[in-house]
Structures are given as C-alpha cells and as structure tokens.
C-alpha cells in the first residue's frame, strides 16, 4: 500500500492527465487520488495545486469538507457503521463498541496492520436493515454484536 515517492507522483500525474486543467474537475481528481492511495498524500495535493493552478487552501478546504476524502491513510477495508436515526435506536452504538473491542480502534482510526479502518456515517439508506454496516462495498444488515467477530474474521485479503 505504501508508495515510494517517485512512483506515487507518477501515478498522480497519470490521474491528472485524464482531466482538463479546470477547477470544476477538482473533486473528481481528489476522488481518483483517494481511490488510488486510500487517502490524499500531501505530495499529491501539491501536484494537483500546480496542475490546476488553485491555492492549497481551497484544496485543503475541499479535502476536509467531504467525508469520502481523507488526509490520513484509511485501512484496506473501510468499515462504515450506520448511526442514522433508525440504526441508532436499534443499537448501532453497541455494534461500534463490539468492533472497538475486536479491533481495538475507535471511529476515525486504522488498525496497526492497515487492514481495517472504522468510521460512523449518518445514513446508508438501508434503514429496513437497521442496524447496518458496510465493509468496502458489502452490506451487513440486521446486525447483532455477536455477529461482528465472524464478519471481521471472514473479511480477508
């Protein structure tokens, strides 16, 4: 997952080449970088700034505004536990507690091996499945704390 600086910049350049030098592509570019690296490396942001000719402050503002973008590396598997109203009242916080116990990380953190990162989100739009979580693109509904351990163990590279 960890890129050598030289290679990293090359990858950013190939992302940038796909887009015209216009500000309106900024979000799309940042999403692509996020997808490639699992986060927005600082050198990459500098490259984007130079390519689009916009100030770093605007980049930083956007990077901190959207939840889908992060400035710190995320795990290879991103666990999103829904804490919307329906999930909240059906015990989503117990699920978070269980994950915390299993992986010893809090929301916003990454496991030491870089495999999992945990976050809570406001709604996944699957309230009928409450409480629900999603690991990368896979949904797990009607969760009970006892199910968490198996799910985490079955999630592998």
């Amino acid at each position, binding site marked *: 997952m960890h890129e050598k600086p030289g290679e990293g910049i090359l990858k950013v350049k190939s992302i940038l080449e796909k887009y015209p030098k216009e500000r309106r592509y900024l979000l799309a570019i940042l999403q692509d970088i996020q997808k490639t690296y699992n986060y927005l490396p*600082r050198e990459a942001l500098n490259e984007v700034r130079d390519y689009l000719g916009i*100030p770093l*402050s605007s*980049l930083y*503002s956007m990077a901190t*505004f959207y939840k889908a973008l992060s400035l710190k590396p995320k795990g290879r598997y991103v666990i999103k536990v829904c804490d919307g109203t329906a999930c909240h009242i059906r015990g989503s916080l117990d699920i978070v507690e269980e994950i915390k116990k299993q992986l010893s990380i809090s929301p916003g953190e990454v496991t030491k091996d870089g495999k999992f990162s945990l976050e809570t989100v406001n709604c996944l739009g699957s309230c009928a499945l409450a409480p629900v979580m999603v690991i990368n693109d896979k949904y797990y509904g009607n969760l009970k704390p006892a199910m968490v351990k198996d799910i985490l163990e079955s999630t592998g590279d």
Partner: protein
Amino acid sequence: MKVIIDDKEFEAEYGEYILDVARRNGIHIPTLCHSDAVPGQGSCRLCIVEVYERGKNKVVVSCLYPITGEIKVYTNSEKIHRMRRNIIRLLAARAPGSEYIKKLKEEYGIPEETRFKVDEKEKCVLCGLCVKACEKLGSMAISTVNRGATKKVAPPFEEPPVDCIGCTSCAHVCPTGAIEVREYEGKRVIWNRTFELLKCTSCGRYFITREQYEYMKNRHGIDMKELLCDRCRQKSTAEKLVSLYKKLLVKKTLFQCYRLQKD
C-alpha cells in the same frame, strides 16, 4: 424610487440594498459580517428586517435584499427584535469571547448561557469575512476547513501558511477580533507564522512585511524607490501637491504680469 423605512420616506436607487439606504439615512441596523470592502456575506443574520411588499410581509437580511419596488421596511419591530435576540443568543453561545458580541448581549439583555456548553475563549462566528478578504487580495492563504460542528477557519494543514503575506487584512476585517496579530522588535506573528517587518524610509517605523512588499511589487509592477508608511505617504503626496500648486500659481502670476505689460 421611494422606500419607507420605519415609517419615514427615503429615496433609493433600483437594486440598492436596504442596509445601504438605511445607513445613508442614519438608521442603525446592527451587523457583524458586513464590510463595505468585501460585501455580500449575509452569514451572521444580525441585520434582519421585516419587509412589506405587495401586501405580503417577510423577514430578510437587509445587507443582501435589493430594493426593486415600493416597499415598507421595519428595522426594529417586535418580531425582528425577538428574532434578533435569538440570533445574538446563539452567536454569544458560539463566540462568548468577543467583546463586540458581549456588548450586543448587554444591549439586548440576553441572560448568561446555561443551555449550551460554551467555549469561553472562542471569538470566531465563522462568518467567512477573513477568507473572502484573503481571496480578494489574492493570496488565498486561509480557508474554512471541516464542516458542521468542527468547521473553522485555518490555513492548509493548520500549519503556518506558506501563501500568507502577513498583510493582516483578515484580522482587520474580522468583526469579532478573532484573529490574533502580534508585533514585536520588527517581527509580526499571524497564523503562527513569523514575518520580518520593513521600516518606513521616512519615519523609520516598522509597517510592512517583506512578503507584502514583494507581493505589491509583483502584482502592481511598482518598484518603489522609497518605502513609505501610510502616514508618510499621505504627507509626501500632500507636499508634492502643494509644490505643484505653488509652481502653477507662479506661472499664472507671471502670465498675468505678461498680459498686463502687453496691454
């Protein structure tokens, strides 16, 4: 175009904002995020007024409401007073550290906050004027970061900003004094970055950062031979005008003498 503000009739241009007309005619409407230099924020909502237009009434922010027809405006009706009190209460809960907000709180008789947890030191109301001023001046060193409850104004990565030129426009435009500037021994510290100050070549007072000077030079293409502070520049311009006027006067007198001789 006629407009009635608090039962008095005033003249207004088409499209002029209510606040501007009111201010011109000495009617006080409280504001926080309004600045004549960088208008159009409309984020503090303090300047709300009640507008009666074509039989309907609504509450609008006077700093952004253009006058396009005959309207009646009330700047301090009971409804407005009540709503403004609420706004001030929330602003005070957000930024209790600001002197200006403390004054407003007193003026509107707002009790101490007990319902919300407050950060006594906080002064920023997140109006965004500083960001806009920085953008207008073109160095764009700061921006709003995060969103929702954790939103704040900060430089990129919350480190001393590389793009900052230390002009202190952000601090000057800030209505609540939330941006700290310190000056000592020829140094200026803002956003945790320390700038070296240059002296005025006339009075010897420190007044401008090197980055600011370079920026002006590059942006306006002026290579100033002497570096004058505001006061000395005014003085020097005035002196130049006086000497120019004197020269003109001499010329005029000479010309008159010449004509007299000729006649």
